[in-house]
């Protein structure tokens, strides 16, 4: 199929940037979206033009590196997939596809479609861990029983790949699904209880500091999340946050 691509081009963080039109031809419907981008880039390189910069790595939907906003949706129109798992059969011959970077003040553009998501790292550094040193002398793994239900729910929260689709999709560029998922994983496990109060307070404080917006419960994040992280995690974080503040 033949397609018209409208792609955001921005040479670096200080450049103003603009949308540029490109044509690609003979795209197979079996290609992944990123392979279609590879074709475009090969074409640009051979013409002596600058290829389009975009983040990608594992190309199997787990590393969370790819981050495009395609036709008005994070990771494009398919559900439960990252951009690397989006296939061209979702599009028709002659389509025009708009491709933009994930946009948020806390995700500044580095180049073209590449954005800086280190704000996510800093939120995790504020408390997204359990303070346990490596010693080989922690208690036996079966020393604390954890109900299957709690373990499964913690796992569901922990499947977050940190791609930032929640932020990109949210009309407020809020990171609460991301933070809620991490807070929930530890809140659901006994190991997480000891530091629960400080964890949620510090992570939320860092989230606010980074300049993410507020959650207004539109639910867009949950729909666009490639891993189906539930909005429930935000409610749980809100409870944790209230109780942490009451406890002091």
């Amino acid at each position: 199929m033949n397609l018209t691509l409208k792609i955001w081009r921005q040479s670096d963080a200080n450049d103003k940037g603009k949308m540029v039109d490109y044509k690609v031809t003979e795209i197979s419907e079996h290609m992944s979206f990123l392979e279609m981008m590879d074709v475009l880039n090969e074409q640009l390189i051979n013409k002596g033009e600058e290829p389009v910069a975009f983040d990608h790595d594992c190309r199997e939907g787990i590393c969370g590196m790819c981050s495009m906003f395609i036709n008005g949706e994070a990771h494009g129109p398919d559900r439960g997939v990252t951009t690397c798992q989006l296939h061209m059969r979702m599009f028709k011959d002659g389509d025009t596809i708009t491709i933009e970077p994930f946009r948020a003040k806390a995700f500044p553009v580095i180049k073209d479609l590449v954005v800086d998501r280190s704000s996510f790292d800093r939120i995790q550094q504020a408390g997204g861990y359990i303070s346990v040193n490596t010693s080989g002398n922690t208690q036996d793994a079966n020393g604390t029983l954890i109900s299957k239900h709690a373990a499964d729910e913690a796992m569901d929260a922990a499947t977050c790949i940190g791609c930032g689709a929640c932020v990109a999709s949210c009309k407020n560029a809020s990171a609460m699904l991301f933070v809620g998922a991490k807070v929930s994983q530890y809140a659901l496990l006994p190991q997480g209880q000891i530091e629960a109060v400080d964890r949620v307070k510090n992570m939320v404080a860092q989230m606010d500091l980074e300049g993410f917006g507020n959650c207004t419960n539109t639910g867009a994040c949950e729909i666009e999340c490639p891993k189906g992280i539930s909005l429930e995690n935000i409610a749980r974080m809100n409870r944790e946050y209230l109780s942490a503040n009451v406890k002091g």
Partner: protein
Amino acid sequence: MSVLDSKVPKGPLKTKWTDYKNHIDLVNPANKRNIDVIVVGTGLAGGSAAATLAELGYNVKTFCYQDSPRRAHSIAAQGGINAAKNYQGDGDSIYRLFYDTVKGGDYRSREANVYRLAEVSGNIIDQCVAQGVPFARDYGGLLDNRSFGGVLVSRTFYAKGQTGQQLLLGAYSAMNRQIARGKITPFNRHEMLDVVKVNGKARGIIARNLVTGEIERHSAHAVVIASGGYGNVYFLSTNAMGSNVTASWKIHKKGAFFANPCYTQIHPTCIPRSGDYQSKLTLMSESLRNDGRIWVPKNMEDVMAIREGKKKPTDLSEDERDYYLERRYPAFGNLVPRDVASRAAKERCDAGYGVNATGEAVYLDFASSIQRYGIEQAKIHNIENASKEKIYELGAAIVKAKYGNLFQMYEKIVDQDPYKTPMMIYPAVHYTMGGVWVDYNLMTTIPGCYAIGEANFSDHGANRLGASALMQGLADGYFVLPYTIGDYLSHDIRTGKIPTDTPEFDAAEKEVTDRIEFFINNKGEHSVDYYHKKLGKIMWDKCGMSRNAEGLKTAIDEISALRKDFWKNVNVPGTTTEYNEQLAKAGRVADFLELGELFAKDALVREESAGGHFREEHQTKDGEAKRLKEFQFVSAWEYKGEPKDAVLHKEELVYENIEVKERSYK
């Protein structure tokens, strides 16, 4: 050929590691503050090592090319992690895990290292649970286990199909804690481009900031390479797009020996290539072979009809199908080990029986299982004279419960419903057992330079068993390196900060800058990917699942010629001072072009078949791998300029606690 010293401590296997730990030198806490360590790569091995070293008190700098340590490709591991916990009471033990791993590696790994790995495996699970890794649990609240290929016990711990992700996020969280404490300084979107040696010791690295293009000098008292495997030398593999050999290769060129490059694991069940544009292959878990039957059509006419779309696989009767694994290996059938299953698929496709347009695909068919489960379920539910549809429905539900997420993934990629039509699969490069040679301390032949995880060669021999890569990465990072590195660093407590304004750093930086400038100024006619794809094709065709002397010799010549052409005609757009993915890729491909040749040379020299390395000249009458006693050694290559001039050093492998046997799956 000299003989290498593996520094394996004396004494009985069972107490080697404990005795050794009791006697090595330590660095006191006050002195650790004055010692810097660089860790390159932040996957399971690098991430866990960085966190642990920082906990101990060392100043750690980490480097990764991704935008966050959390994205390292360890994240893609699906199945699980082995540990000799014997929670299931099924007779597992440290010895049994050790034995399975050595045997699975086709008796080409170092006994003492593997035993240590098995010994610390239990601690890994304890540590990860304490970190909040949500492993699967049973209804009583205890940890659950599953079983994996090649073993007789259930010792694999898992977190859904995302065990690697959860373990990596655990290590990443431990890193984050140390970053918050200021003990780790992370350098993300940075790539190590050379190691700096001062007086023969590794004392720092030259790195490039991938966002600004800036070349940076970083000094340290020790350098740890944890940058993973080199599967991307094949262009197409299940590795991440950015996975590369550069860090390992740079230290190789500065004196670290490279061991067994020809040991590559080709995983039998991956989604086949669909066209030339393909950038990456996707793995389908090994567990599918429990219920799927592998076949190709018996008759060439049917193959052609299927390729042309005139026939569907479901049109073929049982008589018209060749279940070649069941035919060749009646005892193990579809459950033969990875290397055997992969070679058998290649043999059929080479004979022209491949079932897709590229001729490189075989069927993995669940119809029999669906039927079998359906009948079982009908009995369980007391449904008499169940209709064909009802049986199918009941059976499909069971298959869905077991493999639902994999089936969905397959359908997303291929756009075919695997419940209705057989899956198409083909082997793909997955893991590299070979890597930088290390001694018992995990130190390379450069003093002060260590290699851990997939980047080293030590634990898997010629073939890796499922669920043991995660185990090795974390064992190295959490429990081995943090001890052994102390022995070396204890001699550095008076050294003080290593300055970076020295001639050694100047020279290394100049080398790096010259090369980058060359790429940008070359203005050749072919893109980097053009060369990478060509290299991949040579590697796949001649150094793939089966190899022969003639092919390997041709490969050496072809790679060498390709490399020459690359340095003449490569075209890298953009500038050196910006985010430039093509430039980063050019450097990686340049290194692959050298490694590829050494790979072929290693495969040529190894005149035997072992694990993932299959030499057509060395097979039994039935076409099985033939291992030879005289090749019971590790090939460690010393760099001498061109790959063809590399010098072979041998480390003899001695098995005192295990009897070396033949593998048979008939």
